[in-house]
């Protein structure tokens, strides 16, 4: 009996060393909720996440081994790059501004125009794009296959050491799903562990409220689009950047005229470190962004109804709003060792 038990348990141990798929438990903040989908064929595992992190930081994925995902998605900038437009492997710029990768788990349509439905699908796009990594995923897979480093890591994560673009995408998606940002001073304020300054509190009220002149209430109603625990809604709007927009945005994906010049509403978490702002990186600072909403919203046929009345914020209201936006900077996220370059910490 004992012999059988020992045999059985060593078989179990053996199985685990061959394929170490230890489940990874995501720390889901209660306020964010569980409205997200992890594809059934790509469950989160410690090994998958660790592999995805290596791939994210590895310049082997680019045509001439010069850049990686992390070149345009840098942790200390909440995974953006500080440029109006990013610079790809050929030295040319991308068509749009790099996006933060915080809280992607709750994003339902990826990219500024929402053309990609899942992270698995998304990951292959920058690999192949000539102005991003510029290397066909099949070729990248062959490069990784020839290393001594990667095949055992794929074996542990997915039970096979034959590397394919699909498995690379799955590992990258697993790593990206772990990038949760929910420890900003604003979150501590909600847990009664941080006291907002008077300016931050006034800024919060402006952010959350709708103007009601009859009751003497001042509000910028940012929450209408950037509201909720994640500070974005999965919606597409034209926020009045131009009177004659050049980039058709969401319309290119849906074909609907009503979608012309609409873009996905991006998260405002960590917004103080993710400039320049907007899909084309036209604003360098938050002051310019607030000036835009306050005075320069341009009318065009798809301008969002909620931005039609001018806001005319006073200069102290503008300062308050910006003070509030700074409470969304999550230094724990920006410095979390689990999200950093694994080649440096090894």
């Amino acid at each position: 009996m004992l012999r059988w038990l020992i045999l059985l348990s060593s078989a179990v141990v053996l199985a685990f060393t061959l394929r170490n798929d230890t489940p990874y438990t995501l720390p889901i903040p209660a306020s964010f909720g569980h409205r997200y989908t992890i594809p059934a064929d790509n469950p989160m595992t410690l090994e998958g996440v660790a592999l995805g992190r290596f791939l994210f930081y590895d310049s082997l994925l680019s045509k001439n081994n010069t850049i990686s995902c992390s070149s345009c998605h840098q942790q200390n900038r909440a995974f953006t790059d500080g440029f109006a437009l990013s610079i790809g492997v050929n030295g040319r710029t991308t068509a749009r501004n790099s996006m933060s990768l915080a809280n992607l788990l709750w994003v339902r349509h990826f990219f500024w125009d929402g053309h990609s439905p899942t992270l698995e699908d998304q990951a292959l796009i920058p690999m192949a794009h000539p102005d991003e990594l510029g290397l066909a995923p099949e070729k990248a897979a062959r490069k990784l296959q020839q290393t001594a480093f990667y095949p055992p890591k794929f074996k542990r994560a997915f039970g096979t050491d034959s590397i394919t673009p699909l498995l690379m995408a799955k590992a990258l998606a697993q790593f990206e799903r772990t990038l949760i940002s929910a420890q900003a001073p604003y979150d501590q304020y909600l847990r009664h562990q941080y006291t907002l300054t008077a300016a931050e509190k006034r800024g919060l009220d402006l952010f959350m409220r709708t103007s009601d002149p009859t009751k003497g209430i001042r509000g910028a109603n940012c929450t209408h689009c950037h509201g909720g625990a994640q500070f974005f809604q999965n919606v597409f709007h034209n926020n009045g950047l131009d009177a004659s927009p050049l980039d058709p945005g969401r319309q290119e994906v849906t074909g609907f005229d009503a979608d012309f010049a609409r873009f996905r509403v991006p998260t405002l978490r960590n917004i103080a470190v993710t400039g320049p702002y907007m899909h084309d990186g036209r604003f360098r600072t938050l002051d310019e962004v607030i000036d835009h909403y306050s005075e320069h919203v341009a009318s065009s046929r798809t301008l969002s109804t909620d931005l039609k009345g001018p806001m005319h914020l006073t200069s102290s209201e503008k300062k308050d709003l910006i003070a509030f936006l700074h409470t969304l900077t999550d230094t724990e996220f920006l410095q979390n060792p689990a999200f950093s370059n694994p080649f440096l910490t090894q």
Partner: protein
Amino acid sequence: MKKLLLLSGCLFGAWNVSAQVILKVTGEVTTPLQLQASDLKALPHTEVKAVDKDQKEHHYSGIPLIELLKKAGVTIGGQLRGENLVKYALVRATDGYEVLFALPELDPEFSTRTIVLADAVDGTALPTGVGPYRIVVPGEKKPARWIREVREIEIRFAK
């Protein structure tokens, strides 16, 4: 590539003008619907009174949502019982905003108020950015479910 996309966008746009689907009804239905402006005009209309954000009462005319559910073959009336009571309608706007109604809220055998897909307010068509169709829920104190630019109604089971 970008040019190609643009070009196909134009073609798609042109195609849209001639036969643009305004509203889809999908999900747990026997007949999925792809309705054009003329189909919607032909459906029974009614008028309801309701108070909007401006605190004023307006007259809205539109299609009772129940008419769309009937046309799509949703389990309403005598069939709205048992597990069908955990079905709901998810209404989605152009921008992606979504709101939810439990089926009994829409069924006159359960509810005394008529929730409509309005196309006009006080006798004039809804303006762009609000119309062509907007949900109006008479008697609801906060108009957050009065979703504008409605593009799709999806019937689902709560799982």
